[in-house]
């Protein structure tokens, strides 16, 4: 046992060392070790990152509240009488019961059902039941001050239709956190009046970081998801690239469908291929319109640690993945449209909803593939993943997505924040 183990509130997993090859190697232990999971809760989820809390439209009106969680910690987001957003830990200042048990709702105050302590929408304690006792007997001490009790506050910021929260005072504001390289693209997709088209979630039986890798893995996308390639929605022989944020934590992968220049590698690689004729029987599935003039028809943008924004043809969705223990993750899909979409445009987005999600024609494989890694690596904690596609560094790749650069970028951020040198 090292000394730091007792001096730090968190177990620093003292026998952990990153392989000397650097970012191109990832020890499988990181996906199954409960001590590392506990350290992530402290260093990442309670650390200097912005966590996704909810969509702004979930708390559109004064009095609206929405519960969720940051890592393992249950949280509530509210919008107060003045339209101001707040977030706090969903833990009563009395004995720690959940204050909000409903997933969402509208209220003028939040009352804990256990002993009826009541909080304002800003999380401040307002009143305590039987404060002065009953018939002059019992009650709180005379010096009890409601002003000294509140729900534990979380810093909150709304940006691009999403509400983010952080426990750390050190987290720079959202725009700075994301950085100049990737912020404009998030605005392109999300900085519009959005409306919800539908939402569901998916439980995947793997560590959360395997999904963080998966959404950054431009190497797998067109090999595992043959629907993509067969119908030329996304292939590596289209113009496209990988853009890493300044800090490398976040990324954008994009492709331009109109630039397809079919390469022989797809037929040469031992890729199982879908046996469709040249066309779909229901081709309207892929009906799309040019929403932007930059030619980008497919993109996925990540925000460290657990957010991804997809824009496939016209299908815009926020994916948020949340750990549910060391080997389980819940993945939320929030499909969005724009307020002034025509009915035809809404139909197009709704039909394209078939492409992704738990039953996504192109993405459903991701529901099981990370589980296969979780299962495949069980008992092999001291072995490493090997990731040298596109080199060993984490750098933007302007001309090719045949690279694992964005995954190495994730691990770069992870090492930094976890203190794993």
């Amino acid at each position, binding site marked *: 046992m090292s000394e730091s183990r007792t001096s730090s509130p968190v177990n620093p997993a003292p026998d952990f060392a990153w392989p000397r090859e650097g970012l191109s190697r990832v020890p499988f232990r990181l996906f199954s070790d409960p001590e590392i999971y506990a350290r992530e809760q402290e260093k990442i989820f309670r650390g200097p990152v912005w966590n996704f809390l909810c969509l702004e439209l979930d708390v559109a009106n004064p009095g609206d509240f929405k519960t969720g969680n940051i890592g393992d910690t249950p949280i509530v987001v509210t919008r107060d009488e003045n339209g101001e957003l707040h977030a706090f830990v969903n833990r009563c200042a009395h004995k720690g019961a959940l204050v909000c048990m409903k997933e969402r709702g509208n209220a003028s105050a939040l009352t804990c059902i256990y002993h009826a302590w009541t909080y304002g929408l800003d999380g401040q304690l307002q009143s305590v039941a039987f404060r002065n006792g009953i018939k002059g007997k019992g009650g709180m001490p005379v010096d009890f001050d409601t002003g000294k009790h509140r729900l534990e506050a979380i810093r909150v910021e709304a940006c691009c239709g999403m509400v983010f929260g952080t426990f750390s005072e050190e987290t720079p504001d959202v725009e700075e956190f994301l950085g100049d390289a990737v912020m404009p693209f998030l605005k392109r997709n999300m900085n519009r009046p959005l409306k919800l088209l539908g*939402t569901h979630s998916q439980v995947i039986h793997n560590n959360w970081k395997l999904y963080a890798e998966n959404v950054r893995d431009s190497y797998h996308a067109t090999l595992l998801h043959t629907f993509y390639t067969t119908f030329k929605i996304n292939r590596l022989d289209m113009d496209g690239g990988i853009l890493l944020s300044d800090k490398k934590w976040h990324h954008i992968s994009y492709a331009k469908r109109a630039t397809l220049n079919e390469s022989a590698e797809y037929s040469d690689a031992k890729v199982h291929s879908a046996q469709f004729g040249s066309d779909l029987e*229901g081709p309207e599935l892929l009906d799309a319109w040019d929403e932007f003039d930059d030619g980008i028809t497919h993109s996925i943008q990540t925000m460290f640690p657990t957010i991804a924004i997809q824009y496939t043809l016209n299908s815009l969705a926020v994916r948020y993945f949340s750990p549910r223990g060391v080997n389980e993750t819940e993945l939320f899909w929030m499909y969005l449209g724009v307020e002034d979409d025509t009915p035809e445009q809404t139909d197009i987005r709704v039909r394209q*909803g078939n492409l992704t999600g738990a*039953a996504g024609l192109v993405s*459903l494989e991701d529901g099981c593939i990370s589980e296969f890694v979780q299962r495949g690596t069980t008992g092999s904690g001291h072995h490493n993943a090997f990731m040298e596609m596109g080199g060993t560094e984490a750098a933007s790749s302007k001309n090719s997505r045949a690279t694992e650069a964005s995954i190495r970028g994730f691990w770069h951020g992870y090492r930094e924040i976890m203190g794993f040198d």
Partner: protein
Amino acid sequence: MLLDYCHRLDDEDWDAWPGFFTEDGRYKILTRENFDADLPLGIMYCDGVGMMKDRMLALQTANIFEPHTHCHLLSRPALSGAGSQIEARTNFMVTRTMQNGAMEIFATGKYLDQIDLSSSTPKFRERIVVIESRRIDILLVAPL
């Protein structure tokens, strides 16, 4: 027809599935949460038999998943309407059994159907599958 539909799916007779619908029939799986909130985008959506056939071909040739089987259990249907267009509401439960034998309830909910009786075999003009849970375990590849 309601029973036969389930048996064909349980028996993985995928190519039979689109045949239960009229040419312009609709099939949609929605969570109860989205259905109650009147949100249009569900988990699976086929608008017309063409999209259904594409789904079945994708399931058989494109999509990759761990082998598993489904077993449907149906309640008695409540029928309403008259003439050649009737409506039905039927509760269902579907279990999923993985190749290692692990079995669980995969989905439960209700079928809300618009049935066309005007031709020799009854067909769905619309089948809305409202599932109770918003949370799908692993993935959903076969229609319910």
